[in-house]
């Protein structure tokens, strides 16, 4: 069956699209499942900056675990075309981290809009597509042992993660209370 042995390009695309949907479903729960009463409790014990930093940290760890699991399942159930495993595992964690940060903040916005995952997908897809394209392009190099690793792109991804953390810390206090 062709689905069991996809060529490297398809494998790469499939992997990142699955990561995207894992991240939407895993991270969206963190805000959409908070009840109003529990939010009131949080508001009485902590500041918005501490709260969003804690959420970002929790979702990052959650997404790192999920990324590791999905990577293992991919390697077990499909063929394994990756030539440079160490680089690819690093990229998987970096990508999972990027996705979890962006979607944490978008979940905070979507929770205020009183609608669930639908509005989050509308808000999130256009923002995440550039990062996803870049991740796919960078991880395209791990299927060939002789290809150069584009360090510039990796630095850019790290910078954009720092930017998301900074923006969350600055903007979340405005979403904190109704």
């Amino acid at each position: 069956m062709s689905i069991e042995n996809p060529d490297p390009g398809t494998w790469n695309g499939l992997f990142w699209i699955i990561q995207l949907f894992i991240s939407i479903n895993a991270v969206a729960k963190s805000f959409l499942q908070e009840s109003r009463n529990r939010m009131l409790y949080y508001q009485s014990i902590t500041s918005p900056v501490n709260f969003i930093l804690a959420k970002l940290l929790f979702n990052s760890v959650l997404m790192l675990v999920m990324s590791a699991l999905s990577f293992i399942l991919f390697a077990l159930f499909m063929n394994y075309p990756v030539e440079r495993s160490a680089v690819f595992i690093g990229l998987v964690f970096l990508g999972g981290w990027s996705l979890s940060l962006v979607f944490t903040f978008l979940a905070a916005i979507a929770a205020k809009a009183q609608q669930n995952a639908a509005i989050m997908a509308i808000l999130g897809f256009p923002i995440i597509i550039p990062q996803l394209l870049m991740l796919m392009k960078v991880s395209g190099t791990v299927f060939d042992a002789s290809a150069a690793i584009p360090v510039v792109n990796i630095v850019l991804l790290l910078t954009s993660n720092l930017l998301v953390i900074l923006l969350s810390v600055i903007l979340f206090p405005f979403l904190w209370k109704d």
Partner: protein
Amino acid sequence: MNKSWWKILCVLLLLYAIIGGFLMDVPAREVIQESIRNLYYHVSMWFSMMILFTVSVVNAVKYLSTNNLKYDNLARQYAVVGIVFGVLGYSTGMIWASFTWADPNNPASASFASIAKDPKLIGAAIALLVYFAYLVLRDSIEDIDKKARISSVYNIFAFALLFPSIWIIPRLLESLHPGGEGNPALNPKDIDARMRVVFYPAVIGWTLLGVWIASLKVRMKNLKEKTFYK
């Protein structure tokens, strides 16, 4: 904003951009030929769009710092006019693409798949989608203050992530679209001096037109919902 000199200036600049754009001398280049005149319209549209979106995000920041709904209204109307200019930028770009990238031996639809994959076109589509999402988010919240606050937050977040990525990423990927190296249209070596005398006034004229449309929409909204605005 109620002074009329800049509206007169806008009309004069646009008349100059249209008449001068079609009649004045242009350098002869291979492939693009006379379609080079599209520079005055296509590139100006994207310039105006970016300026209008920037005005929108500045107003969103102002809203968050003052809580005055006037700024939220401004942010919303500038975003809408920015979308209109983005769509016009696409339509003028299609004219250019059909002259230069499309294979004249096949129907236009046959070349579409290879053209539409271009990173710069995707980047522009993403920019428009983000602002469509901004409008969807606004309409999904009932309470007027909450709507203003949350959509301002999204406006700033999206702008801060989107604009670096649509300026940087297309330069790292190979593209058919010109302007991959350096700053397209701002680099003096890019544009012939004969074209610059029309191009820069055209950019200012189209942007003023966008500001004019946005200010009319703002005033209409103010009249409709007089009670909300100070």
